[in-house]
């Protein structure tokens, strides 16, 4: 018990330090928040144009304009949580390996994965959580007040949504830390970042669009092997329920997501420990 309290204390200290550091350069902080938000707004513009031409994404998929707003909002919330808490750390981690400064992290009396995963937080990236929440409210407002077949929301649905959102973050965190850990073997990982971007790109769309033709192997791979398709799809589906009446997330999919989150975390831990065992310091 004391041990977990100790970890929580360290985590809060990391959060405080990062916030102080971010707020030291206030203009830069605001500018970063502004650019992140404008990028999001532009993406919303793109989908508004798409929905100007089509009533939904995929015939009878249930992803109409406002259902898809919920989907998009989920994407932004998950991504900005990752960018706030893990992205700067994964970047820092590969730098630590390259420069040999990982030695100092290894010497500290705390779990190394915990230390390299949480040390630095980029608070300005949270601005997209706000944009995501606004979009979420707009989408849900329209869905719950539409005249035919309005969406009914309960507290339970919101709790499930939050829970599966966190499962999604866990899956992506595991993928990110595993990719970052491979830089112990590879030396540098610039291409890995592109790789990360291209893989997560698949998770940004409803999974039904891949379930056809030569998309099926892709769908299978990104659902069962590298489960990034579950990250946004499952929580967004729980909340927006695109195929009402009756929930569109089957129990099997929900349970599988849970298993996938736990397995991803275990695999990432395994990769991390394996990679650390091969670490040779770079300093003299």
């Amino acid at each position, binding site marked *: 018990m004391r041990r977990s309290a100790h970890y929580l204390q360290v985590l809060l200290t990391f959060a405080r330090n990062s916030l102080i550091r971010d707020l030291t350069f206030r203009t830069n902080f605001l500018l970063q928040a502004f650019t992140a938000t*404008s990028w999001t707004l*532009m993406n919303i513009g*793109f989908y508004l144009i*798409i929905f100007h031409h089509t009533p939904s994404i995929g015939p009878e*998929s249930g992803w109409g304009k406002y259902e898809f707003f919920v989907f998009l909002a989920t994407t932004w919330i998950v991504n900005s949580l990752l960018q706030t808490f893990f992205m700067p750390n994964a970047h820092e981690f590969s730098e630590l390996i390259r420069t040999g400064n990982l030695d100092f992290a290894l010497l500290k009396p705390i779990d190394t994965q915990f230390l390299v995963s949480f040390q630095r937080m980029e608070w300005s990236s949270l601005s997209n959580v706000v944009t995501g929440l606004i979009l979420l409210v707009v989408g849900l407002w329209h869905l719950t007040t539409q005249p035919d077949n309005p969406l009914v929301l309960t507290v339970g649905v919101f709790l499930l949504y939050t829970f599966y959102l966190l499962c999604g973050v866990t899956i992506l965190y595991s993928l990110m830390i595993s990719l970052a850990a491979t830089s112990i073997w590879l030396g540098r990982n610039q291409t890995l970042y*592109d790789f990360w971007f291209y893989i997560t*790109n698949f998770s940004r769309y409803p999974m039904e*669009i891949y379930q056809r033709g030569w998309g099926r192997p892709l769908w299978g791979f990104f659902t069962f092997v590298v489960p990034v398709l579950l990250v946004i799809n499952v929580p967004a589906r729980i909340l927006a329920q695109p195929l009402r009446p009756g929930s569109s997330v089957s129990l099997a999919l929900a349970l599988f997501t849970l298993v996938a989150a736990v397995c991803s975390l275990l695999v990432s831990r395994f990769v991390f420990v394996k990679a650390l065992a091969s670490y040779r310091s770079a300093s003299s």
Partner: protein
Amino acid sequence: MYETARCWWTILRIGLEERLVYRGDFALGTLMRFLPIVTQVFLWWAIFDTIQQVPGARSVSGGGGGGGAGGAGGATIAGYTLSNMIAYYLLSMVSRAFSSMPGLASGGALQIRNGEIKKFLVQPVDLMSFMLANRVAHKLAYYSVAILPFALVFFFCRGYFVDGWPAPSVLAAYAASLLMGFLLGFFLELSIGLIGFWFLEVSSLLFLYMLLTFFLSGHMFPLDMLPQPWRYLVDLLPLKYLAYFPAAVFLEKVTGPDLVRGLWIEAAWIAFFVVFARIMYDRGVRRYSGFGG
């Protein structure tokens, strides 16, 4: 004259050698850059299926034209069939291969900030000519490696080019629009870099430019999809020549007098930015003060 040519040749050769050091990484990176197109294919496939099957959807219009991806054969969005749409995305990658200038503006601003620009003031080499020659070399090196992944992807996706190769005259116009896209991209981005004479840090400005370019050049979607007041406004900007225009020329979405006029307007924009960059450079150099060694 001979001296100038030799100087250019040297700059070109150095640039080429510099770029061809990491060939393998480079070719792999280029191939990976096509991956987002895979998701675009499925996204548009689903969208075209929807407007095909939902009667009364806004953009459905009759007409033939087979879809390379099967399924949504006849449906069109803003005059694009599904095959056209995928072909458009592939072609916009080619346009951007010509018009994007990674590191040009930021590099230029950095040279101003750290004083490296001094060497151009004391040596008999013109900064703008040097940068242009250097960029031509970078692009040549890029094409010599990138042509393989590009050819591979286009070969696999040849089914989306339902109308086959366009007529030679269209191809000539396409080549012209690509070359002019390179020049426009160069002088446009150089102008932004030269703002560094006035503001030392241009990275936020650059980000804004990148954002606008991505959206308004037609890199994200064909500009024909924009609803009316926006479409008109985008037509007034030079950004559409960086991605949309060459692709639209190849797909014969812009033909006849419109094509000729488009090429002339593009040339006029290039002339404008050449003069603009030159004036900015001259004024900037007058403002500039360098100290120390």
